[in-house]
């Protein structure tokens, strides 16, 4: 008995020791002079949590607004609901999955086509087919990000019938929707704080189509709509944060398949080939003419490189694709030098508008343009993880080369939080980047 009691004392002593943990007094979370109790997020695919070429549940769960909202909980933030896909339709629109590498090290991506949330398709006269997704029926929500939306479209009443992602948020089935995105965001919605990262697609739509399938939103239109939008969003004195538009050339979608890499591949088979040819915008005009490509011309990630050198019949005979001025690479695959310059000029103007309007309204600004250009130039080293803007290996960008990985979104969330804290004197704690993953490898 006596021994047993001794034993108990020893055990009790050890337990006492394990309880004596050191404590670090961390920064006291404070909301500063903002109110985060009801936060809404406005934006496009980046805001929705789009990744790997699709919108799906896991991506939504790691959207940067949801990460910000999680951190806001420490400073009086409220519940942040998202229009999530249901568990049995978790793959949403479908997305790309990395399934391996070729012998030469090229990644192989495969679309995920099971457990989709696709409800059907309608044909809109004069527009084309619109894929429709299962309606979100969970009531009010805070993440209002709509993949694909441009600022230019926020006051366009039929838009709710042309964008399946927007349609699933609205009450009516297409083609019966008439509510504009601006009304959807502002009418009757109670919120105390917002983030707005709209505008990327006004430039990106043009750029990703190689300057062929879309147009840049007019600078004056952008300024007018952005002003209307921010005026409406701050009508009741709400505070918020806005993001600038990244330099399109900062994303791997335009930096992975390079002219040099294609040429090197061709020269391996045929060392006499000197150049590859593209159909390029003649600077200062709207006409296109073939010329030899240079390193300044950007080839899109989705360009089927196997097409290079395949024989094409032309008025001048049967010639190899991409290797002669008569068979240039199709315009849709190339954002040429002049198109890059034009896009950058527009993005600079858009960003000028964003910063000016934000300054007028006293909003915080996350300068995504500068941030992502710095990442491209220098990379990032966080918690022992080296990150950069490279496709797949960089860890920030997802398999579509434009949208981000969960880790990339967490980094963006932290940048938004830093901007908010700096502007409003708050101390929203940062998210732990290590807790969010990068690209998944098979």
């Amino acid at each position: 008995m006596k021994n047993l009691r001794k034993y108990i004392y020893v055990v009790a002593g050890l337990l006492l020791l394990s309880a004596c943990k050191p404590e670090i007094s961390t920064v006291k979370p404070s909301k500063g002079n903002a109110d985060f109790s009801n936060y809404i997020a406005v934006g496009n695919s980046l805001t929705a949590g789009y990744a790997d070429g699709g919108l799906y549940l896991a991506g939504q769960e790691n959207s940067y607004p949801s990460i910000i909202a999680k951190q806001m909980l420490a400073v009086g933030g409220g519940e942040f609901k998202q229009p999530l896909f249901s568990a049995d339709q978790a793959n949403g629109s479908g997305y790309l999955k990395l399934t391996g590498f070729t012998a030469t090290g090229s990644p192989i991506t495969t679309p995920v086509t099971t457990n989709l949330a696709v409800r059907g398709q309608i044909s809109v006269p004069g527009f084309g087919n619109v894929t429709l997704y299962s309606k979100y029926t969970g009531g009010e929500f805070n993440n209002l990000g709509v993949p694909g939306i441009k600022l230019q479209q926020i006051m366009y009443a039929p838009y709710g019938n042309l964008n399946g992602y927007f349609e699933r948020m609205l009450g009516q089935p297409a083609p019966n929707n008439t509510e504009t995105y601006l009304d959807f965001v502002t009418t009757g919605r109670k919120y105390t704080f917002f983030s707005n990262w709209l505008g990327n697609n006004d430039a990106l739509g043009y750029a990703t189509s190689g300057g062929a399938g879309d147009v840049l939103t007019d600078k004056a239109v952008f300024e007018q709509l952005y002003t209307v939008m921010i005026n409406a969003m701050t009508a009741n004195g709400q505070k918020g944060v806005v993001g600038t538009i990244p330099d399109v050339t900062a994303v791997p979608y335009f930096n992975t398949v390079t002219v040099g890499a294609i040429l090197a591949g061709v020269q391996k088979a045929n060392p006499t080939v000197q150049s590859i040819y593209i159909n390029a915008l003649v600077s200062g005009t709207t006409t296109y003419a073939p010329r030899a490509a240079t390193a300044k011309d950007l080839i899109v990630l989705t360009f089927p490189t196997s097409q290079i050198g395949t024989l094409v019949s032309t008025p001048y005979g049967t010639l190899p694709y991409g290797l002669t001025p008569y068979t240039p690479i199709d315009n849709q695959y190339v954002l040429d030098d002049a198109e890059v310059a034009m896009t950058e000029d527009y993005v600079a103007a858009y960003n000028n508008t964003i910063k000016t309007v934000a300054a007028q309204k006293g909003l915080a600004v996350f300068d995504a343009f500068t941030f992502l250009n710095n990442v491209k130039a220098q990379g990032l080293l966080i918690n022992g993880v080296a990150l950069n803007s490279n496709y797949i290996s960089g860890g920030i960008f997802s398999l579509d080369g434009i949208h981000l990985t969960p880790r990339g979104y967490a980094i963006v969330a932290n940048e938004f939080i830093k901007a908010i804290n700096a502007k409003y004197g708050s101390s929203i704690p940062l998210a732990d980047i290590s807790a969010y993953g990068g690209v998944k490898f098979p």
Partner: protein
Amino acid sequence: MRKILLMALALAPVLSYAQGFQVNLEGEKQIGMGHTGVGQAQDGASIFFNPGAVAMLQQNYVQAGISPLFYKSDFNLSGTATQNYNANKIATPFTGYAVWGPKSGTWKLGFGVYTPFGGLTDWGTSWPGKYSLESLDLKAIYFQPTLSIRLTKFLSIGGGFVYNHGSVDLTEAIPLSNSSGQDGQAELKGSGKGYGWNAGIYIKAGKELTIGLVHRSKVNTTISNGDAIFTVPASLQSSFPQPNTFNATIPLPATDAIGFGYNPCKNWTVALDVNLVNWSVYKDLAFDYKTNSPQLQDTDQPRNYKNAVAIRGGAQYKYKDNWAFRFGGGYASTAVNDGYVTPEAPDANRVYGTLGAGYTMSKHLDIDVSFEYEHLMQRTQTNTYSNLSGTFKTNVYIPGISLAYHW
């Protein structure tokens, strides 16, 4: 042509016998007196503290002790409100000493086994610094045959050869997720050896005062052909060749120490030690993998440690011949420069206090217990190599017990 080049990962295992790993637990009597022992001849632990004092021991000794060590670290990632604690794991530094010599002879032989360096830490697989370190189990066991000779009544010298058996088992996460989102894992596991020596002089400077001087040499410990196990997604495994081995050399620093023992009256002993630990030998940490790949390169990280000083003091009160009560404390400066603090032993300046008690049974058997509390100052750091930025704070609790038979 859409070829991706996985960049060389910042896979640079952290591994150091930082001061956090100089465990200073080489005898319960000495722990009780604030780790002092260079200037006294208390018992067989003099083999470690000062081989010169061994010949002055009145008796022969066989003794063993153990000091379970609770190392409690807290980490706060900069800018966040979360605190991460290392897991409750108990390291077990131990000692064993034997001293024998002819009664009233001028020499004694000794053999010591002790663990002057070691570390056990486990931060888990989900803390922010997981890409630097998840867990580390590091041991250095010194074996030291010793000869000590009394030259005169008031002067003795002694020295010993040191053989170190070192072992390491380190894990860290690799930032490459598999299809279910789990990180890759690296484990480096191996053992090695090193050699050194330990020599001292012991002086009875008067009736009340004893002085000791000791040099414990550097012990370069080389881990050769340790297992380097990398678990990464199958499609990337060829970038991390398996099976693989690694070599690494870690210098365990030399210590110069001077110690004083003072007996102001019959029942009291007061002791003071000053140690200079030559950590500046630890300039870098290199890992050499047997099979490299573009992603798995040998690494060489700067460490740039600086020399550290420890000042220790303690006292013992003898009660009725067979009881002893002890207390002590000290201060140790950190060896780790700003920018080089790593999670395996988040080092900082430290203070500690100790208590101890001893009871002698039937004149031959000492039972000694000790307790130490050590506090590492809060230190906020951004590591230059990993950019891991945050605040570390550590408390260490060390109870200990030993038995010593003497005749």
